[in-house]
Every structure is written in structure tokens, then in C-alpha cells.
């Protein structure tokens, strides 16, 4: 019992620390990717290739003055970012990153808490996330913020339905609500994944679109549409409170990417069994990355690169070497595949942001109710019918 608590505490710290870092660097990645899409370098000043930019941002946000505007509803104004970030981080707790592993003689899962209704938990928590935004918009006593909050609540209620329906279809195929079992049913080959196994392309797409709306990302970022609403619901927020909203948004992105991975892409499962050599993919990837970095360091385009690229290359090679250590492989391989899948989805999020314009509000609603919802219902019906016929 005690060891359970200790292990849980350790896991919480590890996951929380990693998540915070990832969230901070996700910001950097996003800026970089969009910058490259727009053919510009992006953050470049702080650290090599702006690698220390997140750190600088964090310091800036912490040290900034926390401005409390007059005429706000103080308790709610203060509670709103807290609610938002709490709900965003809460759902991470049930997401499994990998299978059970043995660390220092203890078997444990790479998951903070296992619920046999994990999917429902994630849905529940994400549905609570809207309060943070709505309350922020309302308590700011600012009409832009209020409109942002209204939009957000309407949008999230509307898109929760197709989201839930899209989730239901893979759940039907896997016949469980436990996130662990969900992954276990997709073990083996690529075509065992729910996406391919159950022909869930439609619900995957619906899920992705709805999760864009749920996370208020472009093209559904109506609640914070800069050119209409200044900054939407967080117009009146500054410093850490503003950072909290930011963090919540990125945490939500991570959550939905994790969910998509677990539901459709087989979670931490490799695309093909290890005996066919999937275990060497990370080594190859990191080694190749390291070699490329070394090559670029050799033919440095800029003066600084001659120093930084070889360092990065050596780090990559070291990571590749780590993946060769047999007893670490059990831990790292699932993690690698999980991160790879989640990372790809996050890249899609950023990619879309750099590509698509924003919807108009009525289009957004019409799209949810007249396109996405019927499609999701139809997909669920067909899936259920097929399952009923087959079994």
C-alpha cells in the first residue's frame, strides 16, 4: 500500500515535469513550424535556434505584473484560469503511455491512474474544461471577453456531440472503456489498429475536427479570434493567469492527441511486431538524425551552427545508443512509439494552424450540426450494424 503511494507520487512528478517541459517546448515547436511554413526562421535569439525561448517566456510571464482589472468578478476571475488548467491536466492522469514495466523490482504501469471507464473520464473532464473559458469571459466584465466565452461554451457543447459519437465507434470495435484494454486490443500489426481494422477513417477525421474545436484551435479558434475580439476570453488576463490559459490549450492538444492515438492508432503499440525488427526503428531514426546533424555541423551555414549541430548530433547518437540497451528497451520502445504518434498528431495541429483560415461563427455551428453530427451518427450506425452482423 505504501509502495503504491510512493510509486504513484514518483510517477506524478515524472509525468508532471515531463508534461510541463513538453508544453513549454510545444510552444517553441509551434512557433518554429509555423515560421518555416511561412518561410521565416522563427525564434532564433535565445539559445541556439531559439531553443531556450520557452524558458525565457516562462521567466517573462512569471515576473510580469499580475494586473487585476477593476470591475471584474474577482473570485471567478481568479478561479477561471485555475479551472482551465486543472481540467486540462487532469485528463492526462488516466492516459497510459506504455505497458506495465518493472522498475527497481516493482511492476507498475506507465499510467498515473487506471480507470476502467477511462474514456468516460477523459470525456467528463474535457467537458468541464469549458467552464474555465466561459467564466473567464464572463467575469472579465468585458464585452469581447464575454462574446469569446459565449462562443466557446456554445462551440464546445456543439462539438462534444460529434466527438463523443466519433469515440463511440472505436469503442464498439474494442468493446471496452478502459484505455489500457483499448490499446491491448490493437496489438500486433498496423492493420490491427482501430483506424484500419475497423475502417474508422470517418470517425478518426470527425474526431480530429471536433478536437480542433474542443481545443479552440484554428480553424475553430473563434473564442479568441484576434482580429475580431482582441484576444477573446483572455483579453483581460496577463502574466501567469494568461500563461495558465495558454498551458491549458496546449495540454488539451496533448490530451486529444493522446486520445486519438489510443483510440485509433494503437497507443504505444509498434506498427509491426518486435520480432520483425520494429525495435530498431528508433535507433535508426535517432542515429540518422544524429548523422544529419553532424553533417550539417560539418558544413555549417552559420558560424554558430558549427558548434551546436555537432552537439545535437552527438546527443541524438547517444539517444540511439540508449535504445540499444536491452533492459531500457522495454521502457523506451513503447514510449517512443506513443510519443511518435502523438507528436505526429500535434504536428498536424500546428500544420493546420499554419494552413487554414478561420471559420465564420454561423459556419462553425452549421458545420457541427449539419455535417459533422450526421456523419458521426451515420458512421456509428454503420459500425454498429457491421459489428452486429459479424458477431
Amino acid at each position, binding site marked *: 500500500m505504501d509502495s503504491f503511494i510512493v510509486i504513484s507520487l514518483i510517477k506524478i512528478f515524472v509525468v508532471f515535469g515531463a508534461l510541463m517541459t513538453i508544453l513549454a517546448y510545444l510552444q517553441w515547436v509551434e512557433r518554429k513550424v509555423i515560421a518555416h511554413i511561412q518561410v521565416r526562421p522563427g525564434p532564433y535569439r535565445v539559445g541556439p535556434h531559439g531553443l531556450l525561448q520557452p524558458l525565457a517566456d516562462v521567466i517573462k510571464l512569471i515576473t510580469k505584473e499580475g494586473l487585476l482589472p477593476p470591475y471584474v*468578478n474577482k473570485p471567478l476571475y481568479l478561479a477561471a484560469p485555475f479551472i482551465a488548467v486543472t481540467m486540462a491536466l487532469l485528463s492526462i492522469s488516466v492516459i497510459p503511455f506504455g505497458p506495465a514495466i518493472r522498475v527497481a523490482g516493482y511492476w507498475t504501469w506507465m499510467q498515473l491512474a487506471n480507470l*476502467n*471507464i477511462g474514456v*468516460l473520464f477523459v470525456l467528463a473532464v474535457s*467537458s*468541464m474544461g469549458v467552464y474555465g473559458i466561459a*467564466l473567464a469571459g464572463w467575469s472579465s466584465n468585458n464585452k469581447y471577453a464575454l462574446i469569446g466565452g459565449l462562443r466557446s461554451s*456554445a462551440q464546445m*457543447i456543439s462539438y462534444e456531440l460529434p466527438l463523443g459519437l466519433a469515440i463511440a465507434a472505436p469503442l464498439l470495435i474494442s468493446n471496452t*472503456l478502459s484505455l489500457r484494454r483499448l490499446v491491448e486490443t490493437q496489438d500486433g500489426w498496423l492493420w490491427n489498429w482501430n483506424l484500419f481494422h475497423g475502417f474508422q477513417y470517418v470517425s478518426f477525421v470527425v474526431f480530429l475536427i471536433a478536437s480542433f474545436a474542443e481545443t479552440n484551435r484554428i480553424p475553430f479558434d473563434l473564442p479568441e479570434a484576434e482580429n475580431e475580439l482582441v484576444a477573446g476570453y483572455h483579453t483581460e488576463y496577463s502574466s501567469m493567469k494568461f500563461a495558465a490559459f495558454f498551458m491549458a490549450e496546449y495540454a488539451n492538444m496533448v490530451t486529444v492527441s493522446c486520445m486519438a492515438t489510443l483510440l485509433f492508432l494503437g497507443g504505444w503499440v509498434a506498427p509491426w511486431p518486435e520480432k520483425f525488427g520494429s525495435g530498431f526503428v528508433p535507433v535508426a531514426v535517432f542515429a540518422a538524425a544524429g548523422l544529419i546533424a553532424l553533417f550539417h555541423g560539418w558544413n555549417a551555414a552559420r558560424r554558430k551552427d558549427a558548434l551546436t549541430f555537432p552537439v545535437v548530433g552527438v546527443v541524438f547518437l547517444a539517444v540511439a545508443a540508449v535504445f540499444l540497451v536491452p533492459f531500457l528497451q522495454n521502457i523506451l520502445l513503447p514510449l517512443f512509439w506513443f510519443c511518435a504518434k502523438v507528436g505526429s498528431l500535434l504536428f498536424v495541429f500546428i500544420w493546420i494552424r499554419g494552413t487554414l483560415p478561420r471559420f465564420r461563427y454561423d459556419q462553425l455551428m452549421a458545420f457541427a450540426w449539419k455535417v459533422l453530427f450526421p456523419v458521426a451518427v451515420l458512421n456509428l450506425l454503420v459500425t454498429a450494424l457491421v459489428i452486429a452482423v459479424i458477431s
Partner: protein
Amino acid sequence: MDLILFLAFALIAVVAAINVVVQRHPISSAISLVGVMGSLAVLYLLLGAEFIAAAQVIVYAGAIMVLFVFVIMLLNAGGEARAGRSFVASLLGVPALVALLALLAFFTARLFPSDAEVHFGGFKGGTPEAIGRALFTTYLLPFEITSILVLIAIVGAVVLARKELE
């Protein structure tokens, strides 16, 4: 452990419920009500109703209350004005409430002696599978009827909230 959980969340529930009643602004009441529902969800988990707990959060806290908050924000009505209390309400209401609570408490204490106890895991019948099985076999007719009810509610809400056509 169970006792601590119960006491903590019962306390939250009671305090939040009192807050629902005494808060002057509806949105504060609404947030407090969400608090009540959240803590009740935890208690439901304690009682082995895991699906209902999730549904409580998703449906009640996540959908119904969001709707309330949405409407409150949309109308942006201010706090309640302090007006003279209804004569009947204060004359009958307070004693009636006190009597109601006392009676309910008495009832409960009398009908359920303290030897009946609750501990987490004492009842495992509330899984989604069990609920679904009951819902689609024994309770299929009520289920279908509620679906019709919901359809009617959708139509009704649309008709009521629709803009008058010129």
C-alpha cells in the same frame, strides 16, 4: 480512507449547495451547483456507480450546467434585487423547511439503522456493461420513451427559442 473521502466531499457538497441558495448572482449559484455535482460524482463512485458518476459529470456538469451558464451569460442579467420577502414564503417556508429536514433525517435514522455501512467496492454492479445490459433489456421501453422525450424537448427548445420570422 472511504470515510475521509465521504466527509470531504459531503462537506464540499453541502457548502456548495448552501452557496447555490445564498449566492446573489445566478452564475455563482451555477458554479456552486457544478461543485455539488462534482462532489456527488465522487460519492457515486464511492457507492459503486461508476458509469452514473461519469454521466453525472458529462451530462449534468458538462452539458446541463454549461447550458445554464450559457443562458445566464447570454441574458447577462444582474444579481437579484433585495425585495420584500413573500409573506407566505417566510411564514410557512422556514418552518416547513426545518420540519422537512427534521422529518427526513428522522425517517432516515429510523429506517436505516447504522449497522448498514458503505465501503468502496461493496457493490460492483454499476459498470457501463451492467447498466447497458439492464438498459437495453429490462428497461428498453423506458429508454426508448426517454429518447422520444428528448426528441420532443429538442423540437420544443428549437421552437421556443427560434426567432420570429418576419
